[in-house]
């Protein structure tokens, strides 16, 4: 009988909080979007599932051994842990209060040495770090997973279209599109925080702004450095908006261009030699080394992947970087990001703010890219279709495809895809550079 009670009191149904219920619903919603609507499923399936796992009560999949012990250990263990943390628990306060006291100590007061000692106590009585917690520490907090993904993305990226015409053209579009990032940072600390709507620090604002870069691993990397407490919401927003490119961009594109502009046909791209493709990642790396070392992890791994791809002598490594390795890392990264979908941090007004600001960043970036393309079209001899400016936000290759599609609507013989790939990959570099500036300035 008592055993039955233990089982019931340890069950999810008994312990489920409202927050956890809602977060499980959010996880199911993300899975629905990923599976039924094909919203970036490679990331959103693991993230959504990880979000559900993280919110299963009592399972402790997303928390450390120490936190798990604080939540569920017997009173005797709690007292031992308190001793390790250099505190004593008021005998009259009762179990719930003891747990709250310990949690507060662990989150704030305790020194690293005391935390180690308390963790030793928890481990000794059999508690272990949750699987998703371990994944988060190993893959995200260390920065390793987003960097390996970026290496894989580099190994899949063809810089040919960009190299065919870098002059005054593609990279400026890629740069302009990053305006969404910085405008959003300003907006987040400006109107939003200053007017008291929400309360974002400048670091948080920077991490939110990067969503506008439309680049998942860059967003995760920046927010793991600058605002780990928002990582879950930021990653979800980043991948969701990458998936939403075909919905968000076309109206803005139609609004800011005339039909005649959308019909502009661009000149054929020249062929690019193998050697140019080999030298480009090295040239980019040298510039990063000289001018923005803080972007070196991101762009360094990106260039490494691209060099492996183009050099033509390490096909087996390229193949692994594009397949087995990036897939393994994606699974681990997705589950780890999902582990940050916890009620306390996700179900705050801030999350809606993040979603809204991310959307704004995205829209401003799209608009800035288009407007810059219009300006360049006026100033340059070469005709430039302003639609390709919208591809500068990155979201490779979705944004380029959208530009192509909207172009075809106006002129069914005007294929812009390859022309849009230039600003598209330039946008990846652009947002990594923006990330580097933010980390340099705020990190």
């Amino acid at each position: 009988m008592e055993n039955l009670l233990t089982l019931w009191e340890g069950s999810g149904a008994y312990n489920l909080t409202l927050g956890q219920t809602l977060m499980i619903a959010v996880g199911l919603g993300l899975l629905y979007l990923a599976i039924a609507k094909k919203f970036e499923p490679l990331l959103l399936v693991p993230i959504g599932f990880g979000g559900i796992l993280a919110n299963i009560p009592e399972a402790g999949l997303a928390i450390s051994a120490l936190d798990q012990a604080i939540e569920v250990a017997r009173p005797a263990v709690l007292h031992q842990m308190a001793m390790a943390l250099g505190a004593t628990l008021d005998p009259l306060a009762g179990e719930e209060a003891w747990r709250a006291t310990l949690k507060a100590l662990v989150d704030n007061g305790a020194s690293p040495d005391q935390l180690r000692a308390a963790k030793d106590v928890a481990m000794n009585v059999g508690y272990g770090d949750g699987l998703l917690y371990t994944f988060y520490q190993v893959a995200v907090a260390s920065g390793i997973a987003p960097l390996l993904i970026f290496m894989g993305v580099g190994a899949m990226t063809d810089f040919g279209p960009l190299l065919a015409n870098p002059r005054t053209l593609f990279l400026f579009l890629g740069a302009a599109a990053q305006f969404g990032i910085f405008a959003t940072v300003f907006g987040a600390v400006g109107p939003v925080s200053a007017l008291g709507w929400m309360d974002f620090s400048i670091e948080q604002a920077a991490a939110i702004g990067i969503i506008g870069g439309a680049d998942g691993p860059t967003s995760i990397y920046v927010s793991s450095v600058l605002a780990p407490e928002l990582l879950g919401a930021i990653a979800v927003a980043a991948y969701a908006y990458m998936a939403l490119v075909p919905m968000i961009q076309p109206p803005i594109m139609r609004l800011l261009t005339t039909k005649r502009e959308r019909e502009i046909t661009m000149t054929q791209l020249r062929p690019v030699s193998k050697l140019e493709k080999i030298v480009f990642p090295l040239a980019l790396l040298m510039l990063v080394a000289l001018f923005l070392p803080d972007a070196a992890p991101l762009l360094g791994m990106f260039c490494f992947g691209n060099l492996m791809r183009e050099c033509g002598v390490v096909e087996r490594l390229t193949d692994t970087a594009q397949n087995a390795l990036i897939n393994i890392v994606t699974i681990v990264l997705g589950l780890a990001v999902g582990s940050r979908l916890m009620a306390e941090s996700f179900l705050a007004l801030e999350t809606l703010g993040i979603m809204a600001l991310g959307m704004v960043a995205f829209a401003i970036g799209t608009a800035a890219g288009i407007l810059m393309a219009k300006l360049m079209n006026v100033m340059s001899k070469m005709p430039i279709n302003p639609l390709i400016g919208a591809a500068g936000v990155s979201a490779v290759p979705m944004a380029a495809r959208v530009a192509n599609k909207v172009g075809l609507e106006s002129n069914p013989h005007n294929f812009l895809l390859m022309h849009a790939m230039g600003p598209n990959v330039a946008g990846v570099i652009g947002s990594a550079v923006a990330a580097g500036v933010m980390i340099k300035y705020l990190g």
Partner: protein
Amino acid sequence: MQDVELLEEGLALMGLGMGFVFVFLTVLVIVTTLMSLVIRRFAPEPPAPAATPARSPAPARQDDELMAVIGAALHRYRQRHRR
């Protein structure tokens, strides 16, 4: 003495364990059967069901859905945890 306790504990674990496994799988049977009934009634197979919704929806709605998913969860949460 201790042996008896151990025996009792073994017996309890056996009863509890088998009981739980049966109850759990019974509930799983019920849930699965209901799930299948619902799906076969409301989303019959031939036009591959998972693919169907992706084709039809008005583009503008997809964005709303994301907001709706998160918004609804947040709304209900904040209703109770006013802070």
